[in-house]
């Protein structure tokens, strides 16, 4: 098991389905991490404020409403503006294949769709925690690259 990380799991946008976010939060908890869940319908500003206050190293964004292409890059930008450049961003939910490269380019380091084994998300966290791949890093690596 890797080192314990503080991870925020957030639901940006307006969809009200957080079963997936809760399952991921639970899997990370059972993997030995400290998970802060924000609850539904958070704005990018609220999410960034939570990451800052909680001194989290990872942020997992769940979106099922189709707003990911707007919300995820916005959060990446706000993190960089706030100087939280070492925070690692990952996402999940319903994210069509054709939207993913733009999200990776914006700074998202992994996207986990339905059916992802929870062990894979834990592997990602352990791997990314040892790599300089925060949202402000020039590294263009992403999970599954």
């Amino acid at each position, binding site marked *: 098991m890797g080192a*314990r990380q*503080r991870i925020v799991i957030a639901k940006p946008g307006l969809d009200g389905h957080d079963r997936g976010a809760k399952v991921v*939060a*639970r899997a*990370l*908890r*059972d*993997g*030995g*991490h*400290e*998970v*802060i*869940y*924000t*609850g539904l319908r958070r704005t990018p500003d*609220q999410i960034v*404020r*939570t990451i*800052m*206050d*909680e*001194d989290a190293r990872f942020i997992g964004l769940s979106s099922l409403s189709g707003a990911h292409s707007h919300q995820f890059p916005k959060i990446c930008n706000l993190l960089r503006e*706030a*100087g*939280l450049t070492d925070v690692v961003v990952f996402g999940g939910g319903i994210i069509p294949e054709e939207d993913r490269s733009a999200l990776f380019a914006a700074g998202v380091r992994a996207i986990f769709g339905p059916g992802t084994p929870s062990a894979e998300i834990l592997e990602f966290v352990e791997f990314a925690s040892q790599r300089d791949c925060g949202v402000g890093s020039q590294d263009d690596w992403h999970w599954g690259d």
Partner: protein
Amino acid sequence: MQLARQLSAIENGEMQVEDTKGLIVAITGPPGVGKSCLVDGILHRLAPEIKIAVLAVDPTSPLSGGALLGDRIRLSVLDDDSKSESIYVRSIATRSSSGSMPSIVRGLASHLLANSFDLVIIETVGAGQSEMRCAAVATRIIVVEGPARGDSVQAEKAGLLELADLIVVNKSDLEGAERVVNDLTVSLTLTNDAPPIIRTSAISGEGLDELAELILSLEERNSSRRARARQQLLMAHENILIQNPAFDAIIDRMCEEGIGVEEALRKLDERPS
């Protein structure tokens, strides 16, 4: 930003802090009794005039060492831009401490007071009757009760209630709240310096103004002073145990080799802590 990182360093034992005097209020009570909603109500009334930090404690899994920290969800006050600037909220996992109150919380609270916060509220893990460790950390204790707390004998039982500087009966809009207030009042009439009892409801707003006002002016009860010192000593002693470098290895040996508690204690003593 800087502050959040410093708190992590304190939590991880990488930074020492000196005790700072100030108002540290623990809000404790059974799970689901409404502690988070009461904290939200207090913050709505006191911010932004008063700078408040909230340390919300949730349990660490004894199996995985992980934790799910969800107290922020109920703090709607953070969505109010005119108030959220003077509020800091941090979720804390109990980690390796045996009880519901990690000793490190005292250091975190001290650091926040030293950084111009006027009031630190500790929202404890949902606590049972004998969960008194918060007395070691907080300067005042508010015990929250709900409308369904069993028969009147429950109110007579010793424990956490005796340490309260204020008792709040929450969910007063629900049936049964009045009886709980009566039971507690009757029980406390036999006590020399009984704490005040108020009724609150996060739904109707009853009692929240009074609670917010009281929290700043609560007087310490003489009887709780000794209990506080006792808890501080117990906590300090437990810390020595947890920080012993052999602690985890000895637990492993207890599980795997079946060594007894007496022998485990001897082995812990053998090593320099």
